[in-house]
């Protein structure tokens, strides 16, 4: 297993539970699991995205009672906020789509919304409430998943992927019948032709203000921002962490690998957040940082066997949904590696979907 983020850790855990001996190699480089929000949220950008979220959220719920307290799993639910009638129509479409996937949600009135979250600005048109969504602290959960019989964790950098073996920075080679590449953006340095690119994001966390917000709050335009194929976008997303801290997002930028916080964009993000939650203007932020999502052209992760490389499996490109969809990614990898029946249709996530279109458009 190359990569000990939430996806690599979940895959290692699933394979170890299946009786395999798993060695996880991780370079300890900055990565999405440690930078991200840790949200478990149902997105419905496509049927395949929703299917993966739905299956995965059920797996997280099943795992929740076993998670350590430090994993901070909290089923806070999401409120998708509607600013106008158009947003309400979007909310109702989302409700119908989630229902098709077996996820319950309800449209709530402005009065009810104000009762649930009194700090939201007056004048919102309502919200879609998804009670099954949750949050957790992904770095700790990833570590916990790796504390499993059958897994050994090695802090080392893989410098080359060879046939059923990897070369490490110190010159050693490690061989394995199955190699899973779950290194997110770093995977691009090990395997040519991966269609993943970096989408930079900013986050900010406040001091502790317990009891002010109880749900994960997201604007209904978040989906459009999350699925945009180019340009810089900002969308309101806020979580109340179990510590009472408020974690505020989000931004999306292409064509940069500069990790510095950009004050102008951070200000745009906070202005947007304050537009929904005016009280944010009077509270104290303690830290802002950035991270990079590993995004594919169609917004779906790449999960499955590499079409040409013997014994190589891919589990990467999860963009902003790696925490949400890690358990199903792991279930698909497990089923593929062991030759079991997959828990859901694996075809939308296969690497081949990008290969098939390459000759047709003649671009790559």
């Amino acid at each position, binding site marked *: 297993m190359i990569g000990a983020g939430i996806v690599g850790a979940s895959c290692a855990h699933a394979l170890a539970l299946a009786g395999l001996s798993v060695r996880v190699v991780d370079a300890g480089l900055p990565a999405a699991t440690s930078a991200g929000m840790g949200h478990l949220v149902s997105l419905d950008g496509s049927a395949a995205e929703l299917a993966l979220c739905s299956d995965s959220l059920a797996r997280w719920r099943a795992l929740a009672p076993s998670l350590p307290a430090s994993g901070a799993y909290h089923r806070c639910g999401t409120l998708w906020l509607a600013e106008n009638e158009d947003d309400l129509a979007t909310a109702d479409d989302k409700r119908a789509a989630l229902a098709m996937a077996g996820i319950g949600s309800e449209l709530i009135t402005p009065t009810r919304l104000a009762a649930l979250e009194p700090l939201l600005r007056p004048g919102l048109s309502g919200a879609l409430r998804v009670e099954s969504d949750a949050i957790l602290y992904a770095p700790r959960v990833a570590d916990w998943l790796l504390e499993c019989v059958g897994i050994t964790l090695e802090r080392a950098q893989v410098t080359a992927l060879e046939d059923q073996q990897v070369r490490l920075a110190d010159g050693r080679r490690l061989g394995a019948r199955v190699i899973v590449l779950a290194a997110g953006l770093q995977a691009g340095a090990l395997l040519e032709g991966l269609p993943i690119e970096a989408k930079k994001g900013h986050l900010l966390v406040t001091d*502790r203000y317990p009891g002010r917000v109880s749900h994960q709050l997201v604007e209904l335009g978040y989906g459009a921002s999350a699925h945009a194929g180019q340009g810089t976008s900002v969308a309101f997303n806020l979580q109340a962490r179990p510590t009472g801290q408020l974690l505020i997002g989000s931004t999306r930028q292409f064509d940069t690998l500069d990790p510095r916080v950009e004050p102008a964009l951070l200000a745009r993000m906070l202005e947007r957040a304050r537009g929904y939650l005016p009280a944010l203007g009077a509270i*104290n932020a*303690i830290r802002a940082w950035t991270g990079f999502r590993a995004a594919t052209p169609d917004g779906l992760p790449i999960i499955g066997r590499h079409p040409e490389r013997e014994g190589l499996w891919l589990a990467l490109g999860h963009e902003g949904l790696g925490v949400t969809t890690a358990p199903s990614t792991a279930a698909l990898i497990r089923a593929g590696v062991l030759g079991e029946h997959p828990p859901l249709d694996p075809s939308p996530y296969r690497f081949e979907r990008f290969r098939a279109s390459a000759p047709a458009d003649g671009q790559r």
Partner: protein
Amino acid sequence: MIRLTLDGEALVLPEGTSVAAALAASGDDHARSDLAGRPRAPFCGMGICQECRVCIDGRRRLACQTLIREGMEVERTR
């Protein structure tokens, strides 16, 4: 001299004193408690580490970056 209160106790200190210095002058330099209730105190003294978060006149502020003012009410945050 400037008069202020720290958790309701009166303090009188020279003008130009930071709130972090006022905490130290009170005999108990802790600014806040962590999640487990353990005391935390000013550390970097230059507005970076965020350890000295206190409540000043109802707003969270950094004690090391704030000068005392007449009538200021400072509370340690919990």
